[in-house]
């Protein structure tokens, strides 16, 4: 370092640039990094080990027969859970038909039409409370609302119970997605001469669509795996849902309840089927999650 003549001598600055592993700061940094790694691995263990068990024990029994035939009786060999697969798809479908339109429209109200109104404050509070509601209570509600009224366990009763569970997820994620649409985008829509309805339908909902779909997919995935609300709404059945004149108002099998029933039975055949059904259920949930991520990433 050259010092300009005439100026006071510059103080000598010593710098230590050498990396030292045993310095306090470096040690702490290393430890915390290692801790974070360990925690991340621990967090992955449950899913990986569950998947491993399911693939090993359920994969052995997974076959076209398992997917397409009726559950076996007591000592019967073979069989499958085709009717439970159909039942889950039908009930989750019914639940989606109920909860998605209602949920998205409610979100439009909460996010856009009356965000600060008394109605929306109440609805938002109710929805958030519903998020934490034990799922069995959704079953109790559907039991009272449908099973007692119609006099039979049925797929619509199960669908209603699942819809009650899906609703809060759909409403809250859709509200966030709609609120996340930038104000300048709304300005653009109004500025070009959109009515409020057109702003909502042509700009807000399409722009928020990836976010809304993510929420919908998560709700669907959750509903597909629910057991408790189906126990006394759809009950279970060893027969095809649409057997005998496409009757919907009859007890309906579902994968979740089949797993619950069969895993407690003293027969190896049924227990193997329960493993296979678990694998199928997890795969369904996994696929829906992956799809929702892909959709969520998609930006036009």
């Amino acid at each position, binding site marked *: 370092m050259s010092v300009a003549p005439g100026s006071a001598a510059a103080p000598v600055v010593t710098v230590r640039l050498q990396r030292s592993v045993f310095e306090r700061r470096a040690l702490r940094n290393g430890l915390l990094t290692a801790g974070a790694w360990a925690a991340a691995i621990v967090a992955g263990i449950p899913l990986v080990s569950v998947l491993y068990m399911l693939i090993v024990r359920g994969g052995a029994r997974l076959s076209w027969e398992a997917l397409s035939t009726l559950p076996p009786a007591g000592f019967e060999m073979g069989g499958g859970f085709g009717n439970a697969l159909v039942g889950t798809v039908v009930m989750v479908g019914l639940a989606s038909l109920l909860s998605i339109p209602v949920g998205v429209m409610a979100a439009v109200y909460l996010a856009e039409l009356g965000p600060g109104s008394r109605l929306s404050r109440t609805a938002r509070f109710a929805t958030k409370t519903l998020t934490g509601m034990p799922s069995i209570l959704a079953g109790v509600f559907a039991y009272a609302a449908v099973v007692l009224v119609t006099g039979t366990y049925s797929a619509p009763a199960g669908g209603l119970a699942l819809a009650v569970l899906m609703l809060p997820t759909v409403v809250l994620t859709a509200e966030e997605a709609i609120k996340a649409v930038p104000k300048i985008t709304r300005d653009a829509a109004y500025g*070009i001469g959109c009515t409020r309805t057109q702003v909502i339908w042509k700009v807000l909902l399409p722009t928020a669509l990836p976010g809304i779909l993510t929420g919908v997919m998560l709700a669907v995935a959750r509903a597909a795996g629910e057991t408790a609300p189906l126990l006394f709404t759809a009950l279970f059945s060893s027969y095809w849902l649409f057997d005998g004149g496409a009757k919907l108002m009859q007890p309906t099998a579902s994968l979740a309840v089949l797993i619950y029933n069969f895993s407690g039975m003293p027969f190896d055949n049924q227990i193997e089927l329960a493993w296979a059904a678990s694998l199928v259920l997890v795969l369904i949930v996994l696929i829906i999650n992956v799809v929702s991520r892909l959709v969520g990433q998609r930006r036009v």
Partner: protein
Amino acid sequence: MSVMVKPNARPAESGGTPATNGSVVIDCKLDQVFYGSFLAVRDSHVEIERGKVTGFIGPSGCGKSTVLRSLNRMNDLIHGFRFEGHVHFHGRNVYERTIDPVAVRRYIGMVFQQPNPFSMSIFDNVAFGLRLNRFKGNVAERVEKALRQAALWDEVKDKLKNSGLSLSGGQQQRLCIARAVATEPSVLLMDEPCSALDPIATRRIEELMVQLKQSYTIAIVTHNMQQAQRVADITAFFSVDISKGSRTGYLVESGPTKALFESPREQLTKEYVSGQFS
């Protein structure tokens, strides 16, 4: 809305037309504008002349944006907004009770400070207004025309299906201009359209404004006096009155740009254009 107003069409001189000369498209007499109890702008009479660029300049908080957004009733979206005065457009006061603000905005288009294309393809962005108005003609033709008018066609003609958001900031702003002119509005309002852009993109938009005024009447808010001198034919200078403990904007003077900058009538204008405050 099936009727499209041709640019530069003669206004329908029906009842209630104010006594102005024929070249005034918008006659805005603004007595008081409130946001809640806050008096934002007072006593400003602005005339927007056909086929010209009218620039609104003034220091921050002088209400120039408020005045601009009052012209097509964009401020109606702001809670607590209240307008006293009139905005005569084609012989009607757009603040009349029977006027639909949505219809007003279809004749008086707007370009905003931040480029705000919709999250859809470039083509759909430009076609948006046409579809909104159930345009019956050839949409693709009109989209191309609008993109050419916005000097964007050559850059995007091979990627019309790409997202509007994939473009650069300057291109996005020209896309927004194309979107606004696609429906051929009578007047184009621009609220500091270059403030988020770099100097080169700014230059392009300024050149574009000079071309666009052949087909459209333009009113532009700008923070930049040089920009006003480059693009505006008429300039309106607003200032802030802080005498009553509040900050209320008002029109100081307006006139041909050259005259306003070189021989302003008011002392305040002289001080502002010579850079003594901003």
